[in-house]
C-alpha cells in the first residue's frame, strides 16, 4: 500500500503541476506558444488570466472541492460535493468554465444534483477533476464508474463526458496500482473499440475543450514520451486548453512515473499550503478507499 500512497500523492500533485504549467498558454495555438516562449518548460505565470508563476486554476480547485467534500463526509456524498462547488463559485474563483458555471448555477437555483442531458455538455470540465474520486474508489471499478458519472453530471450531462470521466478514473486506478504502460494502452484501445472518437492513432493536434480532443491530446503524448516532465512539456506546448490537458496528463503521468519524477523546480512554485493540503487529501482519499479498507 505504500507504493499506492506515493503514486496517489504524485497523481494529485501532478494534476496541480500540469494545471499551473499549462494555464499561462491556455487558448493559445502551438505556433503562438513557440513564438512567445520557444519551448515552454517552466512555470511562467501570466496568460489571459494574468497568473502568478505556479498558480493553479479551476482544474485543481474543483478537484480540491471534491476531495474536501469526500474528506468532510468521510465518503462520497453528492450533495456535499455540490455544496462545495457552489461555495467555490461564490468565492469568485480565478476562472470558471461556462458549462461548469451553468451547472452550479442550476444547482444553486433548482437544487438538482444533475442537469438534463445537453448537446453542449461534452466539455472536459468533469473529466479534469477525477483524481479524488479515482483515489477514493481504488479497489472497486464499478464504484468508480458510478461515482465518476454522479460527480460529472452535477455540471456536465453528456455521454462523452461520462465516458471520458470514467476512463480517466480507470487509467488512474491502473497507474496508481502500478500497472504497465502496455496495460494502460490496452485499456484505452478497448475504449476506442466502443467509442472510436477516443482512438489514440491519427491524432491531428487538436487540443480544444471538447473532451474527446482533450483526452486524445493527453493519451497521444502520454504514450509517446518517456517521463513525467517530457510528457507535460509536450502536452502544454500543444496549446489549446493547455491547463486542462496539462492537468489530466499530470495526474496520469504523476501516478504512473511516481513522486521522484516530479521536477523539484516546478514543485517549489506551488504555494506551500496548497502542496501540503494536496498531499494530506491524497492520503485521506486512499484511506477511505475500498483497497485500503480491505473490502
Amino acid at each position, binding site marked *: 500500500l505504500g507504493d499506492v500512497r506515493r503514486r496517489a500523492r504524485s497523481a494529485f500533485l501532478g494534476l496541480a503541476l500540469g494545471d499551473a504549467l499549462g494555464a499561462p498558454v491556455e487558448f493559445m495555438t502551438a505556433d503562438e506558444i513557440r513564438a512567445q516562449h520557444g519551448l515552454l518548460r517552466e512555470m511562467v505565470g501570466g496568460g489571459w488570466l494574468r497568473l502568478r508563476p505556479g498558480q493553479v486554476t479551476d482544474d485543481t480547485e474543483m478537484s480540491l472541492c471534491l476531495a474536501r467534500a469526500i474528506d468532510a463526509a468521510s465518503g462520497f456524498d453528492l450533495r456535499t460535493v455540490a455544496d462545495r462547488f457552489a461555495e467555490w463559485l461564490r468565492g*469568485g474563483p480565478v476562472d470558471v468554465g461556462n458549462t461548469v*458555471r*451553468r451547472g452550479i*448555477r442550476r444547482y*444553486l*437555483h433548482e437544487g438538482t444534483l444533475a442537469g438534463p442531458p445537453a448537446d*453542449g*455538455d461534452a466539455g472536459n470540465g468533469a473529466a479534469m477533476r477525477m483524481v479524488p474520486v479515482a483515489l477514493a474508489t481504488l479497489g472497486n471499478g464499478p464504484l468508480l464508474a458510478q461515482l465518476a458519472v454522479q460527480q460529472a453530471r452535477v455540471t456536465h450531462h453528456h455521454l462523452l463526458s461520462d465516458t471520458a470521466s470514467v476512463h480517466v478514473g480507470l487509467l488512474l486506478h491502473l497507474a496508481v496500482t502500478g500497472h504497465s504502460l502496455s496495460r494502460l494502452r490496452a485499456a484505452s484501445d478497448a475504449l476506442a473499440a466502443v467509442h472510436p472518437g477516443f482512438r489514440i492513432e491519427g491524432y491531428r493536434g487538436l487540443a480544444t475543450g471538447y473532451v474527446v480532443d482533450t483526452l486524445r491530446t493527453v493519451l497521444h503524448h502520454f504514450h509517446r514520451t518517456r517521463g513525467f516532465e517530457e510528457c507535460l512539456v509536450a502536452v502544454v506546448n500543444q496549446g489549446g486548453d493547455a491547463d486542462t490537458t496539462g492537468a489530466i496528463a499530470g495526474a496520469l503521468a504523476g501516478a504512473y512515473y511516481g513522486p521522484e519524477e516530479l521536477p523539484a523546480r516546478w514543485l517549489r512554485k506551488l504555494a506551500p499550503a496548497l502542496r501540503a493540503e494536496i498531499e494530506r487529501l491524497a492520503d485521506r482519499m486512499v484511506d477511505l478507499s475500498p483497497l485500503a479498507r480491505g473490502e
Partner: protein
Amino acid sequence: MKKVEAIIKPFKLDEVKQALSEVGIAGLTATEVKGFGRQKGHTELYRGAEYVVDFLPKVKVEVVVADALVAKVVEVIERAAKTGRIGDGKIFVVPVDEVIRIRTGERGDSAL
C-alpha cells in the same frame, strides 16, 4: 431566454455585479446613460453661473439569462440597487428569441 435591463445609480454597479455573481451570473454588459425621471436633475455651478442639469447619470445593466433565472435575477438586482430614495431606477424584462456565443457558435441556453 430574456434580457433583464436595469437602469441603476452609477455607484451601485459594483454591488449589483457582486450580487449577481453570488447567484452564479458572471456575464453582463453595462452602459453609461442619462436619466430623466421623477428625480429631477440638480443645479451645478459652471464658470460662476448656476444652471440646471435636468438629467442624471445612470448606468444601464443588461443581463441575458435563461427563463428559469429571470425572477431570481430581478430580485437580486432590485435588492442590490435599492437605496429607497427617488431615482433608484427601473428594471425591464425583454424577450430574447436567440443567443449566440461568437467564439464557439453555441446557441440557446448553452451560450449563456
